[in-house]
C-alpha cells in the first residue's frame, strides 16, 4: 500500500489514487508524424527497473493529476510535487 504525496492533500494511501502510467514523450503533432512514430507515442512507455516518472490522479480526493518519481524495485518515492494550496 503505497503512500503517495498529493500536492494538496499530502500523504495518502494508494487506494485514493488512480495510476496514470509512466510519463512518456509529449504528444506529437498528429499531422506531422508517420504511423510508426505515432504508434511509438501510443505504446512505448518507460518500463525501467529503477526510478521512473509517472502520473497519478487523486481521483478519490482533490482530483489533481501530478507526477512523482518512484523506484519500481524498492518503491522509494524519489520526487514528489511541491505542496500547493
Amino acid at each position: 500500500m503505497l503512500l503517495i504525496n498529493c500536492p494538496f492533500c499530502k500523504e495518502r494511501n494508494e487506494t485514493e489514487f488512480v495510476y496514470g502510467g509512466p510519463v512518456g514523450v509529449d504528444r506529437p503533432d498528429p499531422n506531422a508524424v508517420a504511423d510508426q512514430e505515432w504508434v511509438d507515442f501510443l505504446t512505448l512507455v518507460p518500463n525501467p527497473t529503477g526510478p521512473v516518472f509517472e502520473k497519478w490522479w487523486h481521483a478519490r480526493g482533490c482530483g489533481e493529476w501530478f507526477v512523482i518519481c518512484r523506484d519500481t524495485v524498492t518503491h522509494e518515492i524519489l520526487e514528489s510535487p511541491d505542496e500547493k494550496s
Partner: protein
Amino acid sequence: MSSRLSTGGKLIDRSLSKEFMFNGRRLKGFEGDTLASALLANDQVMVGRSFKYHRPRGIVASGSEEPNALMETGSGSKLEPNQRATTTKLFDGMRVKSQNHWPTLEFDLGAINSTFSKFFPAGFYYKTFIHPRFAWKYLFEPIIRKAAGLGNAPKEKDCDTYEYFYAHVDLLIIGGGIAGLAAASSAVKSGLKVLIVEQNDYWGGRAIVDEINIENGSGSDWIYQQVKSLSNEKNVNLRLNMMAAGVYDHGYVLLHETLTDGSNKKMELRQRLWRVRAKQTIVATGAIERPLAFAGNDLPGVMLASAVRDYLVNFGVSCGDRTVIVTNNDDAYRTAILMKNAGLEVPCIIDARPSVSESLSKQVQSLGIKILTGKAVSTVTGSKRVEGVAICSHAGSGEVLETVACDCVAMSGGWSPVVHLWSHCGGKLEWDKKNYMFKPDLTSAPLGANGEGMLTVAGTANGFLISRDVLSDGYTKSKEIIKALTGKVPKISMEKAHSGDESEILPVWFMPQGATRKLKSKTWLDFQNDVKVSDVELAAQEGFESVEHTKRYTTLGMATDQGKLSNINGLAVLSNSLNVSIPDVGTTTFRPPFQPISLGAIAGEARHELFKPIRKTSIHNWINANGGVWEPVADWRRPFCFQRNGESIKEAVEREIVNTRTNCGILDASTLGKILVKGPDAARFLDMIYTNVMSNLKVGKCRYGLMCSENGFLSDDGVVARLSDDSYLCHTTSGGSDRIHAHMEEWLQTEWWDWKVYTLNLTEQFSQIAIVGPKARQLIEKMGVDGLDLSPEGLPFMGFSEGFIAGISVRIFRISFSGELSYEIAVPALKAQEFWDLALISGEEFEVMPYGTEALHVMRAEKGFIMIGDETDGTVIPQDLGLDWAISKKKEDFIGKRAQMRSFMKSENRWKLVGLKTIDPSVVLPDGCYAVDGESNSYGHKNMIGRVTSSYFSPTLERSIALALVENGPDRMNEILNFPNLDGSVTKAAICDPVFFDKEGKNQNV
C-alpha cells in the same frame, strides 16, 4: 501418560472447570486452557493424522507454529476446519473433531500410505500415473484429492461478522515480550502515541515460563508491573490476541485481532483486521524453537522442549511421566530441571555436544538427571505414541548403545528468530555463525516511501537469545526511535535482566550425523506434509538444487505452518547435500500472512449489500415497488422491464414498446452521465474530445457526439447541449460517466493544462426522466408548464429549454433514442420522485406506462441506433458503424483521429454496420452469432464474415430484426448470409438497411 498435575499452571483457573467433547469423548479442562493443553491433560496424545502418509500426529508445539494439532471446531454456520489446538481457547461445551482420517483417528484406512511410504518418496506423483492418459482425471486424481485436504470445508454460510479498524500512531510495537514491553514503557514515558500488540492472550512471552530475573525480581512480576503502569497511560493502546499478519509496502501493517472464542452460538463480531500506519514500527516477535531431526521424531509424544515446559508452567500439564530430553544447546536443560522439580522423571538428557559446562552439568546432575554427551537418538520406538528412545553416538551411523523407556521426548535444536515481518517487504537476512540461525541483516532493512528502513527489530527477533541482551536491546531500540521522533535524547532508566551466559550450540540438522539412508527415511522435517530428510536429499540428488525447487518438489514448508518448524532444518539438509553453506542456499520467500487469517476477516464488512454498494437513482424505490425487474448496469440497477400480474417478461417488454409507440412511455434515464464542461476554452476542448465539431453548436441546441480513445476506437457517445457560450453539458452512457469524466480531466490536466476549462460530474445531482411517444407533448402540457414553449417551433428537435413543469425547475431536451416524439427532462435529483409521480397522474388519460431497458434497446434497434457495448467492443471505430457523418473532416486534430489513419483502420475489408432480416421472420438470430462463407481461414477455423451485434423481436414490425457488423456489409445489400447455430442448424438472414422503422423520421418530427 500426559496428565494434569495437582498444582501449578500460571494461566489456568482451577476453580472454573470446562467440559468439552473431543471426537465424541467428554473431557474436562479449566478456564485458561488452550485446546491443546486440555487434550494433553486428558492424555489425548494422538490428535490427528499427517497429510500424505496419514501417520499418527501429536501436539508438538505450544504456540502458533504448531503443525499437527489441527482440529475441526464448531458446526453448521460456525464450522471451522484446521484450527490450531495450541492457539484455540477452550470453552465450556466446545465440540472438537480431529481431521484427515477415516473411519476414526485411531484406525485410519489412509494409514496404508504409511505402510507403503517408501514407495511414495518426494516427487512420486511426477513419475507415475502417466499412463493411461485418461486415468489421471478419472481414477488417480480423484483418489489423491480425497486423501489430501486436511479438514472438511464448511457447508453453510458464515453467520459471524468482521470489521476493519484503522490506526495511526507514532510507534507500533509488535510483540509483547520483555523487549516489546521495555520499548513501550520508554516510548510512552516520552509522550509518544504507542500501539503494542501481542498474539497470545497474555503478556510477557517466554519470560513468563523461563523465570528470568529482572532487577532482582522475577520476570513475571516485572511484566505485571510494566503492563499495570502502561494501562494507566492515555497515550498507549495495549492489545492482546492481536497478531501482526503482514507488513506491506511503505510501512502498511496488517494486524488480526481475535475477538471471540466461538462459544457464542449466535451471530457475533468475530475478528477485526487492523490497518496501521505508524511513524515507526518495532518488530519484537521473539523466536521459535527448532525441532531436531532423528528417526521417529514424528511420533506423538515427541515435542519441542520449550513446549513441554510451557504446558508444565502455564497449564500445570505434564506431557509425560518419563521425559527424555534431546538437545544441542543449554536451553533445553530448563525443561529437564522444571520437569524434575515437578516430581516427574527425566531419565536422561541426550546432548549431541561433546561436553557441557561444568556449572550446568552440576546443577542437573545434582537433581539426579543423567547427561549423555556426544549422544543422539537413533530412533524413537513406539507405534502410535512414544515408548522409548534408542540412543547412539552422534558421531556414528546410528548403532544403538542403549534403549531408554519414556513416554515423552522433549527436543531442542536451538532457536530461530521470527524474521517473517522483517522479510515480507524485502528485508534481508544474515547468517549468525555463533547461534547458527538467520537473523535480520540490519544493514538491509525493508525500505519505506522515503527510501529509509521502515522497521526496527528488537530483542530475540534481532538474534539475542539471552534475557539480559533481549531486554537491553528493547530499551536501546526504543531510545533510538524516541530520539528520531522527538529530536530529544530520552532519559530512560534501563532496567536490567540478569542471566548467565549459555554454552555454544552445536549445529545439528539431523542426528546421528552419519545416519543411514534407512534412518533418514524415517526422520521427519515437515511433520504435517510428511517430508523427511531422505526426501530433501533425493531432491538434491535429482538436481533440484535451488531451495525453491526443493521446497516445491518435496512440499517442505508448504504446510499450514508454512515451514515455521521445518524450513531451517530442511535448508541445512539441502546445504549438506549440495556441499554449500546454509546462507548460500538461502531461504524461501517469507510471505504474508504470518499466521493464516480467515477470508471473512479479509473481506470485513464489505459483504452482501455492502459488497460494491448499489448506486440508486431517485426513482429506484418506486421501480422496486412497481414490478421493476432489475438488471445490474455498471454500479447501478436498471429495470429490464416492469412486469404486471401474470405477464411474462417477454410480454411485458412487448407491451411497453407498443404502448410507447402508440401512446406514451416514461423512462428513468437518470443513470446517464452528465458532465458540465465550462470555461473560455470549453468549445476548443470539446472539439478535441469529440470526433465532431462542438464549437459551432448554437446555444440552446443539442448535438449527438462520439468520443474515441487515442487508439481510434469508439469509446462513448451521447448528446451534448450548449448551455451558454462557455458551458456545455455532455451526456455519457450509464456506465461511462466516471470513466469519461476521468478521461476529460486527464487530458485537461496532463496535456492541455493551460486551457481554461473546468469539468464537473453532475450525474447524481440531476435525475433525467424521458417522456416518450405520440402523446408525450400532451402529457407534459397537462402537468402544467411555466416559461416553456413545447410547440414544434418553440422547442424543435435537438433543442432544449429551461423552465418549470408542475412547478418543478427543469431543463427539457427534445432528443429521441426511440424515434418517437420524446423529451428528456432533467430535474434536481431530490425533486425527481415528485416529478415522476405527477407525470404518472397527469399521464393516466394518455395511458402512460413506465418502460425498462429492454424496451429502450428494442426501440433503438428498430431505429438502427447503435449502443455502446453492443455494437462496439473496443475494436470498433465510428466509420465501421456508418457514423462518418459524425466525424469531422475539417478538424486538424481530435482524440483518435491520427490512429484512425493507420492502414488497418482504413482497410477496405472492415466489418461494417448493416441490418439483418431473417428469412423466417419469427426466428430471432441468437445474440453474438457469426456469419460464415463456407471457407476456412488460415487457422482451419470456419471463416467468419460478420457477426450479430443486437438481435430482437420487434413487436412494432412484428418480425425479428438484428444489427450486425459484416465484412463490406453496406455493399452487400440483400445478400443472404448463413449464421450457424450452436446446435448445428443454420439461420439465414438477408442484409438490409440498419434503420428498420420510420427512416424518414416522421414520428419524431411532430
